[in-house]
Structures are given as C-alpha cells and as structure tokens.
C-alpha cells in the first residue's frame, strides 16, 4: 500500500484525506477538531491514527494546508519587527499609496495598517538607480548601527527593503550578512527574496509581513515536518503555497508569506483536477464554510494575482486568484430599516448558529436551512453534531419572521435569498471583471454548505451545471493530493520588446530557471520529473499595470513577434481592446519550476444497471419558496451508484455535507461518484 495524505488544518476542523495509490481509491476521509492554541497538536492524533490503521511505512507523501500564516496576521500574533531601508525613504511604509480605496466616503478613513512603529524604522546610506547601478555604496557601519539599535529595541525579526533591490540584490545581501553577524538569532526578511518586483510600498509591506510571521510560522512548518518524518520515515512532507504548488519547510524558511492562502487554494487546485478528469475547461469553484465563501474563476488554468491583501495588510505574493466574501453558514440575519440583511457578521464556530444550541440566539443561514427542511437535524457528521430544530425555529421566528410579519418558512427563504444574492453578485463581479460570462461555466460546489445552496446560485446566474465532488466537506484536503511542488522566481526588468534581443531574453529566463531548478534538485526530484513554465508580465509602454502572458520559445525575432501577439490577445480579453501599434514592454519575468508528483489515478466506475432506482430512506417536507413540497425524498449519498438519476426536489445527505436538488433540477451520479446537477429539459 502506498498512501498519499492531504491534511487541511482549519480554524475549527482539520480534514484528512488519504488516497491509496495502488488501489486508485480514497481509503480514508476524516475530520478532527483543531486546537487553536497548539496548532501542531492535532498532527499527533492524525499521524498516530494513520500509522495504526495503515502502517508507518505505507505513507509516502503528506501534503499540508494551514491557516497558520493567515491567522498569525489576522490575530496580530507575529513578533516584534524592525525595518532597515534606504536613507530618505523611512516613511514609504507608513504613507502607503495615499488612497482611501473603498473608504472613499468614510470621514474617519483609517490609516494604512502597519506592523511596526516608526521608531523601529532605520535608514542607512545606500542607493541604486532603476537599472540596479550603484549610485551610492552601502554604508556598512550604518547597517551595523541600525542592527544594534533594533536589537536594543527588542526585535525578533528584521525586514530589509532598499529601493530597486529587485534590480540588484547586492546591498540587501550585504546588509543581511552584517545583521546576521551581529545578531545570529534574528529572523531576516529581504525584499529581493520575498518579492523581487517593483513598487516600493507593496514590496516593503510584504517584506515586513514576512518578517512579522517569519519566526512562528517557520517554526510551525519545521515542527510539522519533524512530526511527519518521525512517524513516517519514508514520507516526503510538503506545505501548500498560495500559488497552488507545494514546497518543503526548507524551501519556505525565508518566505513563509507564500503560505498565506495555503488553505483555500487547495480547493481550487482540486476543482481544476476534477474539471480535467471530466474534460470541462471553464469552472468556478465555490467553497462555503462557516464564516466565509471562497470562489475562483478558472477559464482553463487558474488565474493568478500578485496584489492582494488580508485585513488591509498588502501581501504581494504570487497567489491563485481567489475572492473571499463574508457569507457562510454562520452569517447572521437581521432586520435593518425595514430590509432583510444577512452577514457579513458571523456567529462563527462559537457560539455558532442558534441550532447548535451553544448559546447562539441570532438566526443564521444554517438555522434558515434547518427551518426550510433542507438540513436534517440528525445527519450532520453522521449525527455527531446534533442540531436543535426548535432553537433554529425560534431564532428565525423572533428575529426575522415576527418583525417582518412573515411565516417562519417565508422568513427562512428570505434569509437564503439575500445570502444567495450576495454570493451571486460576488461571482458576477469576479467573472465579468476578468472578461468572462458566468453562463459559460460549471460550478464546482464544495465546503459544508456549497452543495446545499448551489442549486439556487446557478438559477440566479444562468449557469447550466453544478458538479458536486465526493466528500465535499473535505474537498480541500483532496485538492492537496493532486498538487505539484512549485518553485517560483520573478524579476522586474523593464525591457522594450521592439528593442529586445531574443538571446538576451533567453539568457534571463534560463538563469532564473536554473536557480529555481536547483532548489527542486535539493528536494531530491529526479531530472525527468522537473519542468519549467515561463511567463512575462507585459504592458503597453506608459501603462502601470501588467498582463501575464505565457512565454514559450525565444530564439528568433519571430518568437518575439509571437510573444507580442499573445500579449495583444490577452489584453483584448482582459480589457476589451488592444493597440497593435503601441510599443510593448516586458515588466516582470516569471519562472515556475515544477517538480511533478504523479497524480492519483482514479478508476472510472461503470454505470450500474440503468433501470435501478435509488432508494430514499426518508420523505420530508421542505420549502422552496413558492413551491412548498411535502413529499421530498431524502437519499444517503453512500447508497448512490454511477448512472443513477434523481429529480428535484430531493435531498442527498452525506457525512460532511448535504446536497439539495431544487424543483426542476436533475442530479446524475457519474463514474467517479460525483453528482452532476443540471436543469431538467436543458438541451
């Protein structure tokens, strides 16, 4: 037996998925309760159970996803940080972009967030120009003095960000050597390693954030790796990164900021893999849990972004483009000014929805779904999570139905309607913004609540199909099983395409590839398992935003013309027009070295006897707005086999989620035991 294990450590639960590579099947899907105070503690239980059930030598690969980095930032639990920067530019970090953004009408608009105070920012004499030429040599005595002052100020980590360090890292490297000589225990975060791209504010903010989370997160990563290796001596242990690839603790030691989106991104990678198996190009992944919804548009390959922020902290790293909104099972409904509002406030995991009976009194989406009959009081986690129908009913009645003069069912339907409106608006925004039409996509719904409400979402968006994977509640852990190891390099070097020499470009890419591949060779990948992907961030001269374009061969002038053509087309798609006569520039060079891990091979099951009808174990009354259905059949997903079809209204329950088929929709079980849902009568 060769086991590959995905472990998704969330704030409330930790999900585990184990895949047997020899048999080609999932052999275990488990949920553990996370311990927020000791994030690594849950690993002891998980590894012990796996070793007991399958043997220590069976596990060959462990992939982690973790909210450790994200929560360290959100909860403000990083270390005391200092910053060393170029003389004359101490306030770059504090000034930010002088932009109120969405706070344009807030008379008390907040200042940009800072992870350190100004007295811990020290300037040193040094200066490079835009091409990386030294204008003023670094003053090493000043660096030493700054380092000593920071030590005296009690910092545990130092960020170093010099102007134009992306064009020439020599000064940052020199500073790092001096700091390490003076204070070997300090964590050092260098801007050219964290984010070697231009625009000093965003690079500084990312470098400071990396320093802030550096000591605790890298410690946590090492601890996870040690635990895995002690229990499973043959296993390789990897962590999911925000860019959808995985990396070892060693690779992430200097840049733990790369793991901030580690959790949500795995679901997107899983969604892409599922789409590939089913030969579906355009998918939107939709992951809704207790407090938030994560969604991503995948027109073929995932889209990426380099600018993103968490709780207003800009964290510029290469990240799969995921949008998160405050809509989840715990989103609270309330009446305000005569209108019904749902979220973004959430009852969270504690006290949780009223129906959890842990002291919550405000009605949530989960309560509404219980009142509607969509969620069973007994089915969640096979009954391990009891639900109080009475508490749900009373919360919805007292806080929404009575004040608005509605029946409890109407009120609950209203709560669902408003939440679905919020979700569909966000989905429209992310698809239209990127130049796509949501109607051309398949929705892959997972997370505890995704399959429960997806039926209403596709009706609103005009989407023609939902795909519900197996074990939707632990799908992110599944996504980890199908990832590869990534080492990404980027470099800002503004290069006019009409004056570019193909050999020069080739040299730049080749040098970056070599460095990235060297990292993966250290991870003991054999050469034949390594590939590289090149891309370029390009723009029309004078623009200050870039479009990422894949780069293939760069040997002749025709190759360069081909690259320009690809850029024009990408610009047309993203922005609705192109300017073929304008001068085109490369701004960033990007290389991703990929250490391929063999993908799990799923066996497609043959359809069982076509005529066989599924058996429902319960008939329930459920409310679907205008349609108040009394005889809704309820199925257990584990009893369904390939080829079976179920017409809505119907409910399909499983351990980690509940699938709702709306009236007018038909569900079909495919050969991988996914459920495909489409409107009946779709041509």
């Amino acid at each position, binding site marked *: 037996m060769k086991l590959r294990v995905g472990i998704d450590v969330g704030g409330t639960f930790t999900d585990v998925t184990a895949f047997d590579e020899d048999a080609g099947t999932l052999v275990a899907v488990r949920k553990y309760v996370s311990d927020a105070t000791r994030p690594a503690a849950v690993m002891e239980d998980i590894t012990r159970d796996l070793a007991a059930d399958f043997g220590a030598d069976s596990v060959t690969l462990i992939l982690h996803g973790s909210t450790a980095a994200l929560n360290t930032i959100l909860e403000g639990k990083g270390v005391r940080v200092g910053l060393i920067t170029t003389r004359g530019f101490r306030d770059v970090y504090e000034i930010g972009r002088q932009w109120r953004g969405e706070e344009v009408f807030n008379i008390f608009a907040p200042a940009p967030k800072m992870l350190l105070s100004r007295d811990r920012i020290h300037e040193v004499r040094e200066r490079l120009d835009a091409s990386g030429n030294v204008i003023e040599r670094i003053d090493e005595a000043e660096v030493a003095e700054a380092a000593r002052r920071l030590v005296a100020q009690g910092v545990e980590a130092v960020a170093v960000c010099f*102007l134009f360090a992306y064009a020439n890292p020599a000064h940052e490297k020199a500073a790092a050597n001096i700091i390490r000589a003076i204070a070997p225990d300090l964590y050092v975060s260098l801007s050219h390693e964290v984010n070697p791209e231009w625009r000093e504010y965003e690079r500084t903010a990312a470098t400071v954030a990396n320093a802030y989370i550096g000591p605790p997160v890298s410690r946590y990563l090492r601890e996870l790796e040690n635990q895995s290796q002690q229990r499973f001596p043959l296993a390789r242990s990897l962590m999911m990164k925000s860019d959808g690839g995985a990396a070892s603790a060693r690779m992430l030691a200097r840049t733990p900021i790369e793991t901030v989106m580690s959790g949500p991104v795995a679901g997107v990678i899983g969604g892409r893999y599922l789409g590939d198996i089913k030969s579906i190009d355009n998918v939107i992944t939709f992951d809704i849990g207790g407090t938030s919804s994560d969604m991503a548009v995948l027109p073929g390959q995932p889209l990426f972004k380099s600018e993103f922020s968490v709780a207003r902290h800009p964290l510029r790293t290469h990240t799969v483009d995921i949008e998160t909104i405050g809509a989840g099972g715990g989103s609270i409904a309330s009446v305000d000014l005569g209108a019904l509002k749902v979220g973004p406030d959430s009852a969270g995991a504690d006290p949780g929805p009223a129906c959890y009976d842990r002291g919550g009194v405000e009605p949530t989406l989960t309560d509404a779904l219980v009142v509607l009959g969509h969620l069973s009081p007994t089915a969640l986690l096979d009954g391990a999570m009891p639900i109080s129908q009475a508490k749900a009913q009373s919360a919805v009645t007292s806080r929404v139905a009575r004040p608005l003069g509605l029946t409890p069912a109407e009120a609950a339907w209203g709560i669902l309607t408003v939440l679905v409106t919020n979700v569909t608006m966000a989905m429209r925004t992310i698809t239209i913004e990127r130049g796509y039409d949501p109607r051309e996509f398949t929705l892959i719904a997972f997370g505890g609540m995704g399959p429960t409400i997806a039926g209403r979402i596709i009706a609103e968006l005009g989407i023609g199909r939902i795909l519900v994977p197996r074990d939707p509640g632990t799908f992110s852990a599944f996504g980890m099983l199908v990832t590869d190891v990534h080492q990404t390099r980027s470099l800002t070097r503004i290069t006019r395409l009409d004056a570019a020499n193909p050999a020069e470009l080739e040299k730049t890419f080749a040098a970056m590839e070599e460095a990235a591949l060297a990292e993966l060779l250290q991870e003991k990948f054999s050469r034949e398992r390594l590939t590289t992907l090149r891309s370029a961030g390009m723009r029309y001269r004078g623009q200050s935003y870039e479009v990422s374009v894949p780069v293939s061969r760069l040997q002749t002038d025709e190759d360069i013309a081909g690259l320009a053509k690809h850029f024009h087309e990408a610009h047309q798609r993203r922005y609705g027009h192109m300017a073929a006569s304008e001068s085109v520039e490369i701004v960033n060079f990007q290389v991703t070295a990929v250490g391929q891990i063999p993908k799990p091979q799923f066996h497609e099951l043959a359809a069982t006897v076509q005529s066989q009808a599924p058996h429902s174990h319960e008939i329930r009354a459920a409310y679907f707005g205008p349609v108040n259905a009394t005889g809704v059949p309820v199925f257990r997903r584990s009893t369904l086999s390939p080829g079976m079809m179920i017409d809505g209204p119907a409910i399909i329950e499983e351990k980690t989620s509940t699938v709702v088929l709306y009236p007018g929709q038909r569900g079909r079980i495919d050969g991988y035991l996914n459920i495909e849902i489409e409107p009946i009568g779709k041509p």
Partner: protein
Amino acid sequence: MNPIDLEVIYQSTLQIARELTLNMLRTGFSTIIKESQDFTFAIFDAQGRMVAQGIPQPLHIGPLAAQVGEIRRRFPDVAPGDAFIVNHPYQACQNHSTDICIITPMFVDQRLVGYIGNTAHKPDLGGKVPGTNAGDATDLFQEGLLIPPIRILRRGELIDELETVICANTRTPEVTWGDISAQINTNTYGLTRFAELFKKYGTEKVLGCWQEWMDICERELREEIAKVPDGVYGPETDYLDDDGIDLGKPHRISATLEVRGDVLHFILDSDAQARGPINLRPCVSRNFIQCLVKMVFIPRLPVNDGLSRPVQVSYPPEGSLLNPRFPAAVNMYVRPSQVTTSVAIRALARAVPGRVPAPGSAAGGSISSAGRHPQTGRWYSQYEILSGGTGARPDGDGVSAMDELVVNVMNTPVEAVETEFPVRVESYGLAQDSGGPGTYRGGLGVRRQWRILGEESVINLRTDRFKFSSPGIFGAKPAHPSAASLQSGGAPTRTLTSKVAGVRLRKDDLLSMEFAGGGGWGNPRERDIERVRQDVLRGYVSRDAARDDYGVTFKDDLSVDAETTERLRGEGQSKAAS
C-alpha cells in the same frame, strides 16, 4: 414593499452600477480611466433623481445629476436608443470641460423609466496647454472644447459627425475617443442588465424599491438631523492663496450652518469670482456638502437622492467665486472644493462636535513636468498628485498623507518615477511638525524632492495652502502650510508660489515640495504628555515643537522634564484664560 425584495432589488441595482464601473475599467483606453479611476457611474429614475452610484469620484455626482435634469428639460422627445453627451460647465453645470458626461435614457417598452449616467475625465480636449487645464486660463474658452447637451446616439445610431468634431479638437484623438466610446457602450450594456432586472421583478416593483430606498435615506437622515440642537453655527472662514494670476490676492470662502428642525441649511459665501481658473460651479459644492452630511450622519446608508432632500445649500450672488458667471474659468475647481469642504466641516463640527474631524490640509495637488528624455530622445510628461494630512478626530490623531472627501488619488511609486522619467527622487517622507498641533494632532503632509537628470524640464504646480493652512478646531494651533523651493547650482534657494506655470529647470536642479498637515483638535497643551513623548520618539514632532506647541520638554534621555513641562503648561492655561 416586501423586505426581501426591498433588499434584493436594491442590491441588484447597486451590483449593476458596480458592473458598469468594472466594464468601464476594463474597456476604457486612457490611464485616467485605468489607473486614476477618474470616472463615475450613477443610476437615475425617470424624474432624474439619483437612485444608486458605482464606485464614485465624489466630485462627479453633482454635475452628473444636474446634467440629467438638463436633458429631461431640453429633450421631452427622448426615444429608446438615444444617448446624450455634454461637458458644458454653464449648460447646465459641470466641474470643468475635461469631464464629459454620457447619459442614456432607459425604457421599458415605450415608457421612460430612468437614466444611466456617467462622467469620465479626458486626457485632452484641446485648449492652450496639453491636458487642456491651463493654470493661467482666464476664461472658459481657453479651457478646451465645449459641448452643450446634445444627442450622440439617435435610435441606436452613432452621430458620427460628432466623433469627427471631437477628434479634431484633441491632441490625443485615439485615446479620447476610445474613452468616450467605452462610456457610450458601457451605458448600452447597462440597458440590457436593467432590462433583465425589470423583467425579473416587474417594472413597478423595481421602481417602487428605488422610491422606497430614497425615502428610507431621507427619513433616516431627517431623524438624525432632528437630534441636533437648532441654531446657527459659524460663519467659518478660510482663504485660497491666490488664483495664479493676481498673486497677491487671497480669496475668501465661508460657510454658515443653520439647523432648523430636521433640515440643515448651509449658507456659502465668498469673494467675487476670480480671473484665474479657481471658480467653482454650485452643483459641485452642493453635492459634496450633501455627501459630507451623509458621511457624518448616516455613514452606513447608500448615497441617493433622498440624502439631498433635508440638506439645503445657498450661494452668494452670481459673479462670486462660489457662483461664477459665464464664462469665468473653472479648470482648477478642486482647490476651492477642498477649502469649501474645510469650512463646511468646521461649521458641522460646531453643531455635532463628537462626530466630525477637524478640517484636513485641503492641500492635495499636482506637480507636472515635461521634457526630453536623455536616453530615448522622446518627449515625456510626468504627473504626480501628492497629499497633505487629514484632520484630527474627536478621539485620535489624523492620518498622514491622506486627503478628505473630494480628492482620492494614488501617489506614484518612486521606483516607477525613476524608471520612466529622467529624475531622481532624493527623498520621500512625512514632513516633521506639519500636522496641526492639538489635543489630537492633525496628520502629517508628505514631502518629496526631485533631482533633474535631463538637460531641461518645464514644471507646473497646481496647488494651494502656501499662505493659509488648516486652522484646526476647538483651540488647536494652525497646521504648517505647504511650501515649494528650487535649488539651482550655487544660486540661493528660490521659493515658489503655489500655482506655477512653465518654470524651466536645468540638469542637477533640485525641486522640493512639502505639503501642509491636517488640522488639530483641541488645545495642544492638553495633549496627553505620553502621546507628545511618543511623537518625539517617532519623529512626527520635533523637540522644539513639543516645547513651543505642546508645552512639553525633555531631558537628554528623552524622559519628560516634568517640572518645566508643568510650568509651560501652566503658563499656557493662564494665557488662554486671560
């Protein structure tokens, strides 16, 4: 109306406004659209009342609403497929001619049900300087092409002679027309989205929802205003340095607030209109004052016509700076907008002291330079907008390097400036002591220094607040004003005025610009001593200013010298009392 429909239909309306914004961002041509986001969408009902807006530039909303009203008045015969274009500051009202509105009526069957309107700034519409907005313009006809309200689409057909005229009147025809085209097409896209909305919920229900949300906002605002004690607050007075033409002559702006029952009445006053382009059309100030009231009283509610109903604004007679007579020049209207905001904020702060910050710097402004790039030999044009600080809040210090309400534009990264242009930024930081001293301190303004690396460069400043600065409120001391200077070779440093057109700089010259801070809140001698000490430790305030403004002195180890501090603060008290 059913509370679920009330929420869902209005959210869907806001979503369409948002999608129009995204579509414009996606399809616009110029960097003004794509990077400065200097454009705004709004939705109006058939009576021309604003129902919802996309992500806005606050200064666009008032003129857009005024132009929708003008289209209703002039064109009773609108038909499906029509769309209108206008930029004329005096027919009915516009900020300045480089802001062009496109207004598209919406129909269900043959019934007019509303309008989609947008305004977008243009990179160039002719006139005496590239970019059109000349700092030394002395009448409207020097400020670019004027377009009165006219059709640009008739029954869905583009009136292409207009394209010819517009393209013949701009230095950048491709980009300018590309943007106008995106404005027209985005409205047309909006028509299909609204048709879906009307079809899904029914015309009456959608119109009813809009009506009800305007009424809700009006009702909530009236309720909040009714809690304010009746009375007259102000007048509060401030000044613009000059109009860029008559350099010695400041221009007064003042505001008085009358609160009567559930209505606020702002009475604006000013000196006579200026020769230079710092005049401000009334529709602009009326709207940003209404926005200000919303921000103070009901921040969580959407912006729509309901907000305007309990807020009256009256103006000085025609021929005044705040009520200019055609054809007074208006292109630098942002400067009087900032100062008008400041006096309105001060009047409001008198009425509801705990809910309003001190006035901000009102100093945000632009520096542009042009020259020939020594490496490429091409002409370049560099344009940067920099900020002062916000006013202090009733419970905390102001924010540094941020503007209030009317201006919201990003800075240009140093690494972008030096990559694109032959200049070296020698420093970029916060100006020590620039924040207005108070119990709570105003935010600091920024300072930036540019070294010229090319042979020659010509610069323009479009700023103000070199002579007057935010006075702060409730006993604060005034903030430091802005300043600019030029160092050339061995010559003595030359001080510049706030509005400069066409000054020549040579290689190695150093231009320095420092922006005013925001106003303080309360008596600085009552500022918590530990806060003063932290400000000194962090370098926001110098030791001299700590002593002179805050009455706090330090020993050599930067611990507070309690004895001297007590004496200084005691003197301050008795002085204040006398």
